[in-house]
């Protein structure tokens, strides 16, 4: 489904990172680990199409990113990719269900996969271990763990092919991380979506089919 070919990135301050070749199949779970500054988020941004390719290419279902304009890349991201941030995943002035609905707001193809939006949001929220009542709770009253689950629900809405998660557990304690990942992975199992997650936490490697350590790549 997704493969990277000879990706390199030159930062303005002079640092250059050569990324390993990556191949991700449907339903596959890939963890990219490494210490801070090793280029994890940069790689994720390149895959998300948020960062312009400098060298190398990314193929998604046979389509080269380099052949797409930035406008097409935005549309492509809306149609095929769900994104989970490290923190501050939710828009504070929107309700939980409005935050989740943002996942399909900019994609007609993902919208077409959802018959009843409210029903689908409720289903996703429940599958991630949250009660239905959370939908009407103000976002700022949710715990960080609950907020991350809502972010996962948004990324999953409309069944995008690939979920990108940028250290979604970094703000969670060990117990909550375990519970969160269990519920997230159970949901992925049922939807057969691929996930690329970056994390420096090596204790979570067993949740993933493949682990790429960017530190070793640089070494």
């Amino acid at each position, binding site marked *: 489904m997704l493969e990277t070919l000879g990706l390199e990135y030159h930062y303005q301050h002079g640092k250059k990172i050569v990324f390993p070749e990556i191949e991700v199949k449907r339903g596959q779970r890939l963890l990219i680990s490494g210490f801070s500054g090793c280029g994890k*988020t*940069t790689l*994720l*941004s390149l895959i*998300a199409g*948020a*960062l312009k390719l400098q060298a190398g290419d990314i193929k998604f279902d046979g389509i080269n990113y380099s052949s797409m304009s*930035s*406008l097409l890349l*935005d*549309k492509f*991201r*809306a*149609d095929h990719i769900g*994104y989970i*941030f490290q923190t*501050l*995943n*939710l*828009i*504070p*002035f*929107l309700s939980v269900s*409005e935050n989740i609905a*943002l*996942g399909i*707001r*900019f*994609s007609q193809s993902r919208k077409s996969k959802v018959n009843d939006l409210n029903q689908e949001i409720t289903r996703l929220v429940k599958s991630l271990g949250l009660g239905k009542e959370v939908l009407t709770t103000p976002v700022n009253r949710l715990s960080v763990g609950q907020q991350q689950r809502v972010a996962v629900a*948004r990324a999953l809405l409309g069944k995008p092919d690939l979920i990108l998660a*940028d250290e979604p557990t970094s703000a969670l304690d060990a117990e909550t991380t375990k519970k969160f990942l269990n519920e997230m992975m159970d949901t992925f199992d049922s939807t057969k979506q691929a996930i690329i997650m970056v994390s420096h936490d090596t204790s979570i490697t067993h949740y993933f089919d493949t682990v790429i350590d960017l530190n070793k790549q640089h070494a």
Partner: protein
Amino acid sequence: MLSLLLKSMRSRIIPTSLVTISLMASMVLLLSIERIQQGTEEGFNQSISGVDAIIGPRSSSLELVLYTVFHLGRPTNNITMKTVNDIKQRSDISWLVPIALGDSHRGFRVVATQSNYFEHIKYGNNQSLIFLNGVAFSELSEAVLGSDVAERLNYNVGSEIQITHGSVESIGSKHDDFSFKVTGILKKTGTPIDQAIFLDLKGYELLHLGWMSGKKVFSLDDIDLSSLPAGALDPKTVTSAFVGLKSKITLFKFTKSIREYSKEAISAVIPGIALSELWSIVGLVDKGFQLLSWIIIAISLIAMVTLIIASLDNRKQEMTIYRANGASPKFLAIMVICESLVIGLVAIIGAIILVTVVTYFATNQLNLALGISPSFKWISLEEIKVFGLILFAGVLSSLVPAVMVFRKNLHQTLS
């Protein structure tokens, strides 16, 4: 997009409201000045019609018009009735109505004149005065009231009134030895006529029989009015005279010949010219206010752009989430432009409502202060143009933050 935008703006309700209010207030200021100036000009211009010239003592033409037509400003000197009668004999005169001013009744000016005043003096677009109730005076003890006088003082035909010497009521200033009976009430004209009390010149002369140098010397109760010699009540002087000419072509020739009248220092003033003199003076002040209003509008627009730019940093999370979910930079830039449009439109709607309220109160104030009742439109084409210009300037200035958003790389906000 609009629902997202409105929710986002609601989350920043205080700064957004303040900027909207300041923009709205500046528009209200601009439009109110414009409307009041136009309304006053229209009201003044409509206050006198059909009068070709006003003859009065030689003084400032504007002062004469303001005092005789609008009852504003300082009293002018009088002219003798002999001069007035001389002029009346001229072949180019169609009609002449003398008036004497100076007295009042409970704050309303008294206009002593002849009954042909109601026939010749017109207002608005050459509209004749109409009696709402009753008829013009025919006796020296009769009076006609303007509509506002009758309404505010609750007078009707048959009511009796006493006149005060001068324009301010004080002890001993009342002509309490003679009463006038109201015979007619004029229909509202929206001009100073509504706030005037009309008496017969002879009745006015009678009031002042026992007065010397502004003080009552003897009471009318002490004399037998029927024993007064013929012509005793013929006025000796009047304040001015309104003149209608047989042909308007002769107007400038007429005014020139009046200036050259050798027996008394008098002048003939053309009301329209005197008023245009007034507007040229007022216009300068008005232009100054307008310039100030436009500067305030510009400051408000700068404040709006500053608010949007300042909020961009706080909205980093919001923008990043939109972008990560597939929103294009164009979408976000349009959102920023729409924000300025929403602020502009809300300010415009608020300004229209507020200007209407301000205009309503201004009309009342103009009526109270100047006796004029200008008619204001709900919204004029010129005002729509002003709104359009402000909206366009708002959108144009919002391009700055819009470009900033457009050029922002998603990766910069993700990392």
